[in-house]
């Protein structure tokens, strides 16, 4: 599950960067159409994985809700295995 959280955290951050860069530059429609749902899925996946982790501290669960970098913050808040 931790590997999954790393992947989701990375996708969450990268898709948000791609969406924002696209927003201030070329406004290419496919980036918005595909990047939006992809980012949304990664955001929800981060929250779901942290909630499903047995014994995840409350701080990690709350940090996972932070948009964009929530996955990375939650990873930092989890006790190292």
């Amino acid at each position: 599950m931790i590997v999954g959280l790393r992947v989701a955290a990375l996708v969450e951050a990268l898709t948000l960067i791609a969406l924002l860069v696209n927003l201030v530059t070329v406004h290419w429609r496919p980036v918005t159409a595909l990047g939006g749902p992809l980012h949304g899925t990664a955001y929800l996946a981060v929250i779901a994985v942290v909630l499903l982790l047995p014994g995840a501290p409350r701080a990690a669960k709350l940090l996972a809700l932070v948009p964009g970098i929530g996955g990375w913050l939650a990873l930092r808040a989890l006790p190292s295995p």
Partner: protein
Amino acid sequence: MTAVLLAVHVLGGIVFVGPVTVAASLFPRYAREGSVGVVDALHRISRVYAVLGLAVPVFGIATGAQLGVLGDAWLIVSMALTLVAALLLGLVILPAQARVVTGLHERGAASVPPSLGMTTGVFALIWAVVVVLMIVRPGSTTGVGA
């Protein structure tokens, strides 16, 4: 672009939500038999594919938004049913599975609540209703029904 979103939505439904439905249905039987390996695998499939399955409603809503049908009754009912199924999975089925898995590992036996089988049955039934709604689209002019 709508076609790509819809393709991801349908593919996700088949590849991610399908396995969760099957694994959750089989879990109570193998849990009663006490097959630790099988039960571990089924619980893992239920958890991991539940997370991946989050892509299905997200891409579904994106598809609906592009088609301009988010306000249609068949879609609102489908979304409400999906929410009920997600809550059943996240708040009832997965926690119950986790308790059984812990019991099997720590004590070598675990009591499987009879309600777990019923809940997974309702979970599967909800998907059947949602799929019918997605195809028939009652009240819409683009469905196969009417």
